[in-house]
């Protein structure tokens, strides 16, 4: 379909009900509305544009197929975000199985490095504009291992509880807690180092 049918006044709930009855145009409007958010979630987890595009598209296809199961307990975009997260987690698990675990990675998993880091006492983001702050967060996220990044995204951006993260990542609550702890420590120190870079 060449032209995007914009329906700014129609709420998501109404479009979802129409799409549930097989209205593809209504679904197209929903995709147009939320494609960036769904893509952004896939990209934040995968850190790769092509994979993020593919997985977000797959999420929309699955969303259409499972639309009848959507009961409206959460918002449509939250429901779609959960679908794309699950697809990303599956993909990351497949990739993890394929790559050999390095000693550095194991060290990071055990928090060997993060535990030695100095505690950050001053907010390293104070006075930053939002765009710059987001750019720095993005830069720091890029340097985290996928386990640390994923747990941080699910907790801080998706507001999931430890138990729910453990279920989705197929690991124990203890593992979630330690990963989150090390991810935060590393994040705080990276942001502090960016602040030092700026000042020097």
């Amino acid at each position, binding site marked *: 379909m060449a032209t995007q049918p914009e329906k700014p006044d129609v709420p998501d709930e109404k479009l979802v009900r129409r799409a549930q009855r097989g209205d593809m145009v209504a679904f197209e409007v929903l*995709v147009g509305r939320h494609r960036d958010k769904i*893509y*952004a979630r896939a990209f934040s987890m995968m850190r790769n544009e092509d994979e993020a*595009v593919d997985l977000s598209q797959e999420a929309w296809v699955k969303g259409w*197929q499972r639309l009848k199961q959507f009961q409206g307990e959460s918002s449509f975009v939250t429901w779609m975000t959960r679908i794309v997260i699950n697809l990303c987690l599956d993909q990351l698990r497949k990739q993890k199985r394929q790559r050999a675990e390095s000693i550095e990675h194991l060290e990071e998993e055990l928090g060997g490095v993060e535990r030695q880091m100095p*505690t950050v006492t001053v907010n390293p983001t104070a006075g930053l504009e939002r765009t710059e702050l987001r750019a720095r967060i993005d830069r720091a996220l890029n340097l985290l291992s996928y386990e640390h990044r994923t747990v941080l995204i699910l907790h801080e*951006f998706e507001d999931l509880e*430890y138990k729910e993260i453990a279920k989705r990542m197929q690991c124990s609550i203890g593992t979630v807690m330690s990963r989150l702890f090390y991810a935060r420590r590393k994040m705080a120190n990276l942001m502090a180092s960016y602040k030092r870079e700026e000042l020097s």
Partner: protein
Amino acid sequence: MNLEQQLKLQAWVDGELPEAEARQMAAFVQGQSEAQTLVGELRITKGFLAGNEPEAKLPESGDFYWSKIQRAIEQEEKVAARAPGASWTFAWRRLMAPISGVALIAFLSVLSFNVFRQQSVDDGANLLVEVENLSEDIGSISYRSQSENMFVVYLYKKDVQEAENDPIAEPVDDTFLQ
């Protein structure tokens, strides 16, 4: 502070501790400067992350993106439309496979039972076998070995053999039954 205490502290900051434990942790933090520093860092990190998720824009046009989704949906629906027949066949095969297996086993069991029964009948018959020779010119001598499962009949011309008084010198025919 050990790792266990640090993780518990984090759980307290995240509001994941039960009420009683949360009260204990609050008291613990009050008297521990190291714990207070760590709590400070955890709160700073939570604070700058909240609501500041990096944004990413789709690196291709919306129309192109949608066209790929639409094509994938239509393709899946075509597969699904064919699927009822295919799944019916598949279900039928799944049902028939064990039934066929059972039928084959039953058939082989009956067959082997009949073969062995026939063999035992044959064995019994072998024990009772007699060679009836109605010819006046030809004589016969039979030999049976049960261990070898073998039955041999020698036929000879009576006039020649009896004249020479050597019945097995020139057998005219022999038959092996095994």
